[in-house]
């Protein structure tokens, strides 16, 4: 019963979504849309689980004065600070929540994203070292593509952007499409295994 019920729910949900995809009946289509809305509602309610998880782990470290406990304290304070400010004054512009978001959360997220530039440089250095024949081909094509995308490339040789476009539009796109077709088939086969109850590992 423990696994039968989830398998039955997975089968019915999957079957309804397939039915709705091929049916033009507004009732079936609405029903499938309502199911998707329920996913969002359940996801929203489950946020409580996440908050409990964060608090359980961090409050334990704070109470035991464990390693970096003061960092955990800042985290917990901000979990409550953001939530309470949003509940009390709303999340519109010029509210404390908006101030916290614009001046603390947003710059920190931008900082994390900007680190990507340095990581791309270190990853590119490793990838483009001409150690093997494949790596040399990669280095050669990437130089053409990168130079072909900037004005300097066109200044050096006016045909370079055309070659860069050709590499992106043919060999690169062909490989990407191959991967996408394979992935789509894999996803469809996995969906079929889930709907039929063959794939159950994700349930525990």
């Amino acid at each position: 019963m423990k696994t039968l019920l989830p398998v039955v729910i997975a089968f019915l949900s999957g079957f309804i979504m397939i039915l709705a995809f091929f049916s033009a009946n507004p009732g079936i289509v609405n029903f499938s849309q309502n199911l998707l809305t329920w996913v969002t509602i359940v996801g929203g309610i489950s946020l409580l689980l996440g908050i409990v998880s964060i608090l359980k782990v961090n409050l334990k470290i704070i109470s035991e004065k464990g390693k970096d406990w003061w960092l955990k304290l800042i985290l917990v304070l901000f979990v409550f600070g953001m939530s309470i400010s949003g509940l009390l004054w709303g999340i519109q512009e010029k509210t404390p929540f908006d101030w916290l978001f614009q001046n603390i959360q947003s710059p920190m997220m931008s900082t994390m994203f900007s680190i990507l530039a340095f990581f791309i440089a270190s990853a590119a250095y490793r990838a483009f070292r001409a150690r093997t024949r494949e790596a040399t081909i990669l280095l050669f094509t990437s130089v053409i593509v990168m130079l072909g995308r900037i004005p300097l490339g066109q200044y050096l040789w006016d045909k370079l952007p055309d070659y860069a476009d050709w590499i992106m539009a043919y060999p690169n796109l062909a490989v990407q499409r191959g991967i996408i077709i394979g992935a789509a088939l894999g996803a469809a086969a996995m969906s079929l295994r889930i709907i039929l109850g063959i794939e159950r590992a994700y349930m525990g």
Partner: protein
Amino acid sequence: MLFILIFYFFNSGFTFANPTEEISWFRMDRINILVLLLVFSSAVLLYIRSAKKGKEHFIRKLSGLEAVEEGVGRATEMGRPVIFIPGIQELDDIQTIAGLSILSKVAKITAQYHTPLFVPVQYPLVLAAAQESIKGAYLDIGKGEDYSPEMVRYVAGEQFAFVAAVHGIMHRDKPATIVYMGAFFAESLLLAEEGQASGAIQIAGTANPDQLPFFITACDYTLMGEELFAASSYLSKEPLMLGSLKGQDWMKVFLVICILLGALFETFHLGGGFFYKLFIEH
């Protein structure tokens, strides 16, 4: 359950076709997709049936998955944890489900070796599912007492806050092995480079083609596209699961033939655009 669904179905605006109204039950513009779906499902089901009868199917070796056990063994020897990240998408994404299926297999190996396992997640639903998945794996091999719900942690709900939290964990805990299986986006290289710097063996798998180059560059092993979805079947070694992979392979052969014939027929304007219509939603 069925009664609740039926009740809900009739209360969600469902109507039987009124004889005076013309409600189409089937979208004829999607008939080509239905035909392809039936062909595909039949191929998968046929191979599942043949597997049920005991026929063994050859599945090529996936070195990334062979390395999982090696990675866990290394973590055990070094006394360091294994980190598993099931992507950064919600539970309704098929890649996340594929990741959780692989997590279940990885958890069985870590349970056998008594290796610490840590799973940071970005969504609470994934947290609950991952906890169940690991708990089931630990119970399956009789190590239920070693399971702790704190193996899975909801660390942040925002993409880059999640990255920052995981960076911190990698930096502090110095994991021996990191496994990334699921849907990844701009954070793929951020995570994989930090993992590389921490000296961990890294095994990645995603079906997002844009992120594959980053994983290939920064990780030791990468599962590309369909390999991610095949991984749980490959690791389970169950004939039924392997049979479905074989069916999938034959569908690929069918599609390659269609692409070749389609290219020929469309180039020479033959067949009245049959292959074009077969794959395009009208």
